[in-house]
């Protein structure tokens, strides 16, 4: 058995990884944080990436209102606010951000669970609510003009 990651342990890792990506790839100031409401708002599209351990499955999500997804995508791609961007490019940019932040989360959580493997991100056009079989933690990070919901989901039952 590997060490079981408590869902609360994700909070600091998610924030540190988001801060790192915000400053290095988005050139935005360090993130500020507040607790997310429960349940999560409707219409919260985002990208989710699996982190699969030997004993447990986790999932990390990076979600935001659509206009904030657009802002993040344009910032990542060095575009001006008035530039045209396709929905596909916004989704791909969100996937890339989730990939980068997910990599940072994995790097930090690997100190506790060395078996974690990072999967491929997938973009969902709506709010992903935790199921009864999942624990979750969610915080809102503000980076530039975007409010980003950082969501960690953990399947309660071992694999």
């Amino acid at each position, binding site marked *: 058995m590997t060490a079981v990651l408590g869902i609360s342990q994700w909070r600091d890792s998610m924030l540190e990884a988001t801060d*790192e*990506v915000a400053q*290095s*790839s988005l050139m935005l100031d360090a993130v500020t944080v507040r607790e997310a409401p429960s349940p999560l708002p409707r219409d919260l599209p985002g990208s989710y990436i699996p982190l699969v351990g030997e004993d447990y499955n986790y999932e990390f999500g990076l979600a935001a209102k659509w206009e904030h997804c657009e802002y993040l*995508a344009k910032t*990542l*791609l*060095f575009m001006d606010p008035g530039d045209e961007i396709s929905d*596909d*490019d916004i989704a*791909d*940019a969100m*996937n*890339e951000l989730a*990939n*980068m932040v*997910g*990599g*940072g989360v*994995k*790097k930090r959580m*690997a100190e506790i669970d060395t078996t974690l493997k*990072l999967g*491929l991100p997938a973009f969902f056009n709506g709010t992903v609510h935790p199921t009864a079989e999942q624990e979750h933690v969610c915080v809102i990070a503000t980076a530039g003009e975007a409010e980003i919901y950082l969501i960690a989901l953990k399947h309660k039952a071992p694999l």
Partner: protein
Amino acid sequence: MRALVIDDSSTTRMILRRMLGEIGFDDISDATNGQEGLDSLIAGPTPEVVLVDWNMPVMDGYEFVKAVRAKPEYDNTPLMLVTTETELDRIVAALEAGANEYVMKPFTRDVIEEKLALLGLESH
């Protein structure tokens, strides 16, 4: 200077194209997976450097590096792995297969420039 960027993410391709352009590359082509990248490499002309993602469908970065290094005509073509992977053994495996350098996401233009300089590719 010519570069080939291989990544299934259009975002990463766009970011790398822009950074490489700023650094001084004036002929940048791209591909969305290792097989497409290999086909592009063979079709020529040979780039000064290939930046290749690790996690991709069809053919991943590791398989791409092995396939390129199996062709002696590309012995001197620098291959730089671009990855979010943090496992040292996988990076070591890629370097042992023939990758010359690696860069971790998230990266900045300065990091790319430093890594290119290590390969003898100075910015203009």
